[in-house]
């Protein structure tokens, strides 16, 4: 039996596409937004009073690691999807570095099936750029797209060989798939564990130079230029990378980029006393980089905020800094961080935040929605801008617990998450 139509009544609707910011009702029917306006309830509709909340198009995190198949002890598709909706994300795109690698249509289909069984967020697989993520032969983009892949990426294992990267970009045009690249020059990273600079010199950890990233960014932009293909740069972390993306866009190249909340909020000093919760790639950078990234999300250089949610088992992160794996969780901390540290602080408007979290990523991945127009999917994120909460890793739905934000008190949080016209998460279970 189909769900009854629902009217979300009295929310402040924020839709950056329609440039809408007004208190109106939303009527959801048959998994879609049926109408936007006043007094929309029809006989038989279920009316949900959301007075005082913000209703935004459902957020989409285009960069997560769900670890299934193969590394279920870190995260499963179900635990990841639960974390997504608890964090206000109605959709995610998950990276291919599972075991086996998602370089075949059967793995892509399997991940989608697991997500359907979980029945929470939409989970869009990103397939590997190269077979086995070995950086040698490109994978079957056509079959992978048909199976549901929305992009290709060897995230975490950058494509080192420029000739292979060129071929991947050229071939991607056939199926209009974006090639997402984790830009890193592994030879320059070497044994590095955090950003090279004064703090690494101070506490004695091997450094990763900023050039490790921006040399790869500049190379890949050059390859995007000669191929005319769509290149998406994952997790920008340096001022110079942001400047390169800005120039590429000005030159009319099909280059897009994302930034993580942690790179927008923290600097290398967060490593503190060898805190492995501050160990990720790219590493936290200098304050000047952080400021350049804030400019990049404000002026449209960056198209998306993505978390790079990379869960690891607690035993793996409870090690010495150099031995611990790179990566932290992000799905359940991103929205409060954006609302408190970016919006309330005045760095960006609420409409810009919604664009970066909902619209930008869907445009890059070619997904419907990201707005509140009638006909768009009834995927809605409800925000309470006034509620204050404290980040508590023990309450996470994710199996990963490693976050540098534990204990932080933030104003603004997710009140509820609706997917396909149904409430899949509510902070107050009573609603």
């Amino acid at each position: 039996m189909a769900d009854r139509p629902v009217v979300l009544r009295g929310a402040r609707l924020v839709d950056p596409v329609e440039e809408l910011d007004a208190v109106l009702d939303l009527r959801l029917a048959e998994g879609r937004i049926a109408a936007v306006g006043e007094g929309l309830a029809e006989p038989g509709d279920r009316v949900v009073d959301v007075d005082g909340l913000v209703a935004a198009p459902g957020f989409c995190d285009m960069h997560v690691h769900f670890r299934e198949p193969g590394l279920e002890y870190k995260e499963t598709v179900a635990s990841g999807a639960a974390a997504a909706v608890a964090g206000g994300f109605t959709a995610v795109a998950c990276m291919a570095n599972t075991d086996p690698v998602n370089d075949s249509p059967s793995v892509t289909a399997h991940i989608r099936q697991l997500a359907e069984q979980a029945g929470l967020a939409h989970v869009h697989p990103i397939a590997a750029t190269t077979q086995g993520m070995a950086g040698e032969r490109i994978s079957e983009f056509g079959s992978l797209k048909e199976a549901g892949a929305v992009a290709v990426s060897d995230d975490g294992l950058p494509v080192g060989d420029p000739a292979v990267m060129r071929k991947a970009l050229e071939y991607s045009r056939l199926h209009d798939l974006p090639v997402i690249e984790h830009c890193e020059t592994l030879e320059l990273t070497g044994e590095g564990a955090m950003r090279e600079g004064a703090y690494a010199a101070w506490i004695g950890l091997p450094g990763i130079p900023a050039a490790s990233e921006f040399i790869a960014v500049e190379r890949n932009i050059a390859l995007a230029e000669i191929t005319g293909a769509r290149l998406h740069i994952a997790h920008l972390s340096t001022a110079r990378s942001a400047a390169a993306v800005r120039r590429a866009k000005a030159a009319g190249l099909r280059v897009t980029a994302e930034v993580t909340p942690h790179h927008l909020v923290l600097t290398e000093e967060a490593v503190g006393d060898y805190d492995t919760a501050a160990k990720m790639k790219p590493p936290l950078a200098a304050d000047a980089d952080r400021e350049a990234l804030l400019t990049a999300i404000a002026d449209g250089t960056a198209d998306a905020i993505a978390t790079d949610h990379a869960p690891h088992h607690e035993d793996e992160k409870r090690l010495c800094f150099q031995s611990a794996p790179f990566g932290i969780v992000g799905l359940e901390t991103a929205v409060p961080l954006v609302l408190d540290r970016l919006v309330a602080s005045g760095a960006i408007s609420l409409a810009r935040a919604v664009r970066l979290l909902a619209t930008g990523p869907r445009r890059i991945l070619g997904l419907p929605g990201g707005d509140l127009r009638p006909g768009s999917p009834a995927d809605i994120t409800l925000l309470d801008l006034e509620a204050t909460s404290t980040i508590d890793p023990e309450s996470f739905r994710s199996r990963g617990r490693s976050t540098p934000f534990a204990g932080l008190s933030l104003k603004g949080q997710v009140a509820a998450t609706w997917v396909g016209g149904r409430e899949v998460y509510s902070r107050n279970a009573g609603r």
Partner: protein
Amino acid sequence: MRHLLGIRGLTPEEALGILDEAPRYQDVADQPVPRVPVLVGRTVTHLFMEPSTRTQASFQLAAKRLSAEPLSFVPKSSSLTKGETFLDTARTLASMAPDIVVVRSAESGAPHVLAREIPTAQVINAGDGISEHPTQALLDAFTIRKHLGRIAGVRVTIIGDLLHSRVFRSNARLLTMLGAEVRCCGPPTLVPPGLDRLGVRSLLHLGEALEGAEAVMVLRIQHERMHASFIPTEREYYREFGLTGERLARTDNAIVLHPGPLNRGVEISSEVADGPRSVILDQVRNGVAVRMAVLAEIARSSPRSHRTDG
């Protein structure tokens, strides 16, 4: 002092306190029975995750002279990665409820992790990765003060692999904290950016770095640095950075320190290492006394001291 995790975190008063106490313990060595009952009934566990002959021997001797029960804990490297072994080792050690743990590790920050994982233990850092080697810095400062009569205002030059040296990092912190003027110099490939935060002045050319120095600290150059192309060859290193008599002559009759073991003909000439201004063997002697002072100071703030001393 609950732990000695690094010179970072140490106050000038605490550092000077140790330097002032050390001569007392130096006298112990000259007694017919070189032993004092400072740590009776306490276990001092030497957890050495990285091979070290000198530092381990020095700490063991220091613990024995203080009448502690020294326990050597040298985990074999197994098929597990270093990190997994470390966490398991920490948990195993924690179950034995040790009093003082002296830890040496190839990983920066290992003593911090250990102090977090074994809340009951007191941790002394005997060298962690490229981060710190605080007792080496304390014994170096002690040696400088012994020979030059002061630390404040002394012009010290540190030469060598500044990127990978925990001895450099601890000395830079301690000596500048105690008012010395520290200059440093090494191959540009081995000088990381951001050193000014340590309060030292980094110079490109050795001649300028040595000018007027009262103490020269020569760091050991590791053979593996050549394979990673930080330096072309040992011969070239000696040519550019080796401390020779000729170069030493540019200083203000400086004393010469080296943490050992020496690579003669690489970072230092035999003429200098064995010469009249070398205090290298005295550093080793002072090391035992300084480590005794550190152990005694740590034991004073033991959570158990009110019981055992009462």
